[in-house]
């Protein structure tokens, strides 16, 4: 209704104005990949501003998981909920972030079906920038999710020995890892047809990846073969690092492991994603 009144009110398409915009033959020089990626990141933030509902997963997952695991299993697994929280919280932080990355694929799959992606692909910009920008926008989501987990943890009695520095460092590392892991979902979103199938497959990958790790329990009680699986799971290393940093130690070797797996994730899934993206339809 609003739209029609505005349309009637505005004198549409005046010849002179049209002429002057067309004549303004400005041709700014082409911006570099960093600027275009950041600009697409800005688009992602604008979308959060206009559609804040999309933050539901970022807020609900972390709160649900922290409360559920602490009070459901805490007593049984560690003797007291307080002790378990101290062990669990860094792990939950990892899990929350990794879970939030799934949304990347689902959102992108919806987005790419729309005509606006055709426009982006026909612009003379660094080709991966729309995707990189979307992932940069997601960094905002990871930050919100992390802030919620940590705040809730502090309220419930979690005390990081590593202090603010340890917390900030571990969140920074988590953001890097999540950004890199997102390329897996980006790739999936270009292979699968619907957002639903992306969600389904993501879940199938996600559950084993986060549960078969040292996030919830110390792997010592597991059978040997399971321990071996947990040991190679990059999520375990990530959880160990976050635990260490929050506890005030600097597990250098493990940090290296996490950084290497981050680089590998991008090196493998990045190029595959770009080939799929280029040949889309």
């Amino acid at each position: 209704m609003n739209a029609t009144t505005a349309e009637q009110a505005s004198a549409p398409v005046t010849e002179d104005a049209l002429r002057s915009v067309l004549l303004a033959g400005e041709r700014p020089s082409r911006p570099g990949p960093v600027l275009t990626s950041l600009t697409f990141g800005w688009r992602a933030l604008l979308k959060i501003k206009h559609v804040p509902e999309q933050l539901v997963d970022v807020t609900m997952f972390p709160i649900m998981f922290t409360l559920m695991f602490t009070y459901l299993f805490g007593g049984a697994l560690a003797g007291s909920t307080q002790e378990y929280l101290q062990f669990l919280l860094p792990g939950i932080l990892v899990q929350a972030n990794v879970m939030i990355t799934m949304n990347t694929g689902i959102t992108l799959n919806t987005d790419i079906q729309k005509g606006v992606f055709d426009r982006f692909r026909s612009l003379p910009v660094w080709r991966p920038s729309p995707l990189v920008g979307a992932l940069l926008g997601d960094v905002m989501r990871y930050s919100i999710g992390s802030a919620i987990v940590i705040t809730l943890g502090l309220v419930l009695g979690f005390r990081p020995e590593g202090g603010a520095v340890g917390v900030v460092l571990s969140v920074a590392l988590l953001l890097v890892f999540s950004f890199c892991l997102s390329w897996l979902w980006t790739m999936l979103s270009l292979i699968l047809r619907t957002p639903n199938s992306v969600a389904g497959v993501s879940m199938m990958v996600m559950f084993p990846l986060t549960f078969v790790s040292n996030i919830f329990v110390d792997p010592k009680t597991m059978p040997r073969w399971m321990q071996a699986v947990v040991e190679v799971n990059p999520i375990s290393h990530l959880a160990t690092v976050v635990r260490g940093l929050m506890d005030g130690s600097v597990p250098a070797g493990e940090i290296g492991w996490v950084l290497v797996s981050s680089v590998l994730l991008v090196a493998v899934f990045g190029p595959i994603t770009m080939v799929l993206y280029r040949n889309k339809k």
Partner: protein
Amino acid sequence: MGKLAIETSGLKKSFGTTHAVAGVDLAVSAGGVYGVLGPNGAGKTTTIRMLATLLRPDAGEAQVLGYDVVRDARAVQSRVGLTGQFASVDEDLTGVENLLLLARLLGYSRRRGRERAADLLDAFGLAEAADRQVKKYSGGMRRRIDIAASLVVTPELIFLDEPTTGLDPRSRNQVWEIVRGMVAEGATVLLTTQYLDEADQLADRIAVIDHGKVIAEGSSGELKASVGAGSLHVRLRAPEQRAEAERVLAGVLEVPAEPSADPAALSARISDPERVARALAELSRSGIDVTEFALGQPSLDEVFLTLTGHAAEEDAA
């Protein structure tokens, strides 16, 4: 003829077993409007997507503004504007955000980008809707923001894929004004349409495509001339008399008369204009009152029917 803005030869694209574009040859000279006319599924969008570097052709060559669409994709991208068939801006963002986003991606500074966005919104009569999300725009406003988004950096060539489908006559006229304005400033516009009168009104030259092939090419006058001299349109006072009028006209003009959608109207092709007066006289002698009559050039509808053997609108392929 001046230099060519678009030149394709044997352009092909299939999706599985669907031959969406089955060998298209086009030669579009720079400046003016070139219309690509065809029914649903003819291959218009697929052709445009190849020309705009979004799809790689399976076979054939395409040069846009002298650059190969596959080898020099970048050069093509920085010189053309594309307004896709479906929403080609981000519907979650506002009008001004969309234009500013594109301006930044194309290298404008934040300040100049804002100015450019404001100028474009003004020129397209969208200033008041600048801060509203595009999903809340009316169809006509949406199409205008789509087009404005292709003009952030003034392109030499602009592709408009069915720019007026689904618009009311007023909004359609506005889009036509924009197209004419762009051409007046020297741009080349390639537009696709399913509407014959749109191609007729706007395009200097028209390619008619069907099933992925160009089946006719020429100015609208040439296309019409290839069909015949024109037709006589008659409107009767009493619709009941239409059957009788059909018989009378057919008798005098020696071609079958066809009933129109209007229950009181009918039309017939004429091979010899001199018979028209006799046909009208014959109607009046038979007691059939004629309230209106018109002599028309053949419509592109008739052209389409003649060329393809089926009417433009009823093809649902």
